[in-house]
């Protein structure tokens, strides 16, 4: 399946990535090749197989509504790239 450059650009936007024109073309080729490879699965006859999202056979695995202590905030923040006022700091995604 041949992806278009427009589709690749859409994906970079969803992933919040910025790619150069060269990278964009390289991604287009590689992602197209990956899709072709996965498309091999289309050759298998699955008409008798129900759609399967789980393979464990488990259901309704739940826990009691009990509280455990929080992670220590300062230790967690210390491992983040940037923080201020007890909060994680990131670049703004939108400038609104």
């Amino acid at each position, binding site marked *: 399946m041949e992806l278009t450059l427009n589709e690749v650009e*859409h994906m970079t*936007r*969803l*992933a*919040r990535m910025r790619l150069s024109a060269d990278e964009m073309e390289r991604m287009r080729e590689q992602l197209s090749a990956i899709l072709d490879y996965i498309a091999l699965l289309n050759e298998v006859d699955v008409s008798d197989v129900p759609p399967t*999202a*789980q393979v*464990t056979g*488990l*259901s*309704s*695995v*739940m*826990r*009691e*509504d*009990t*509280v*455990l202590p*929080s*992670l220590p*905030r300062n230790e*967690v*923040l210390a491992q983040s790239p*940037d923080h*201020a*006022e*007890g*909060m*994680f*700091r*990131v*670049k*703004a*995604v*939108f*400038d*609104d």
Partner: protein
Amino acid sequence: MSDYLTTIGLEVHAQVRTASKMFDACSTDYAGGAPNQCISVVSLGLPGALPVINQRAIELAALTGLAINCTVQLHSVFARKSYIYPDLPKGYQISQYDQPICTDGWITIEGDDGQPRRIGIERLHIEEDTGRLVHYPDGTSLIDYNRSGMPLMEIVSKPDIASPEEAKRYFQKLRQILMWIGVNSGNMEEGALRCDANVSVRPASQQAFGTKVEIKNMNSFRAVERALVYEVERQIDVLESGGSITQETRGWNEAQGITVGQRSKEFAHDYRYFAEPDLPPLIFEPAWVEARQAELPELPDVRCARFIADYALSQQDADLLTTDRAVADYFETAVDAARAIQGTPKDVANWILGEGFRLLNDSNEESTNLGTRMPVAHLINVMDLLAQGKITRTVAKQVFEASFQNGQPPDQIVAEQGLTQISDTDALATLAREVIANNPKAVDEYRRGKKTAIQFLVGQIMKATRGQANPQTARTVLEAELDTDA
């Protein structure tokens, strides 16, 4: 306006009142505290962290579904909704998509014509709330993950709402029910209850719905109504001037009183939903649903109708007494207790809705505080003192207020402040003679045949005794004095 029909659907997000979060054991009790004090490997989305479903949150979601007449599905699944934004550290939100836990319900609201109107509920699904971002002017954002992973129900109405006023009443009714069954705090300021709307208009002659616009950021009942009134007018104006409506998301700007289009490119919706591989499906037996049904309390509408039937209350009184479950419980407890002193349900209702609500209103308190401010025993005590003639009605109100304010039992207040009713004829006769001497004008009027003038003189005795005189006795004594003096 009347040439156009309005169609509105609401999406209400309600946090579920549990002790711990939806998929991990972090506390949900973060309000008013420091940021990032309720965080875990799951709510931070750290690699390898696995979610585990909070059983109580599921039970309460099913309970809510039953309260709004939904079918609880015996088989439902979680789904991943993918989007990249820092309020969700995993890059996806765990939600439900094509198999939600509850479907196809309704609630009844008062329609614009004053008649009951049924508003359909499309679905109720469970998801996790996101973190909170604080945008800084320097181009960075600060993130607090306390809210991340809070259990959240999304309740989606059918497009059955015909006006902004109905939308407000639907939202109010839903809040009442959620608070009544104890699943949500109803706190809109803290974001525990939020609302988005889809709204479209179409010429009355047209069958097909118009293009819908989504409105976000309405943080109060008033905002919901105002934003929708504005948006309906805006859409009609666009159509009237020959334009067409763009399907888009608009934010309500409270300060300016307008809705503003949000840039669609940045909100590109491509959620790529798929079944959540980390969570097995929820599969329940009918007995599990029956257990939830058994947990469901008598709902406000049913209780309101019963108050009218059992206690001969007016519709208005019954409505007010069932706005809040704590008040309804208080009322019924007091009605039971009042039987021993021959107090009627109407008496009890009058005390609660009159003095009780007035005082709560004065101090800007929630009506749920009534029971702590004025325990039922204290209310009954005031009613009893009044019924036995130990205090006058005026004094009873003063005692109620004093007891409400300082928590003292009413009989103690009466004893300490010497408020017992004065029915002693001799004592009142002395007072009556003073009042007669000091108010010749009223006395003259009375004697010249204007019998109503005696009310003024009774009032003077009441004033002199700070409301403690038995008004009936005061009147009799006055009449006796006036008639013998003549």
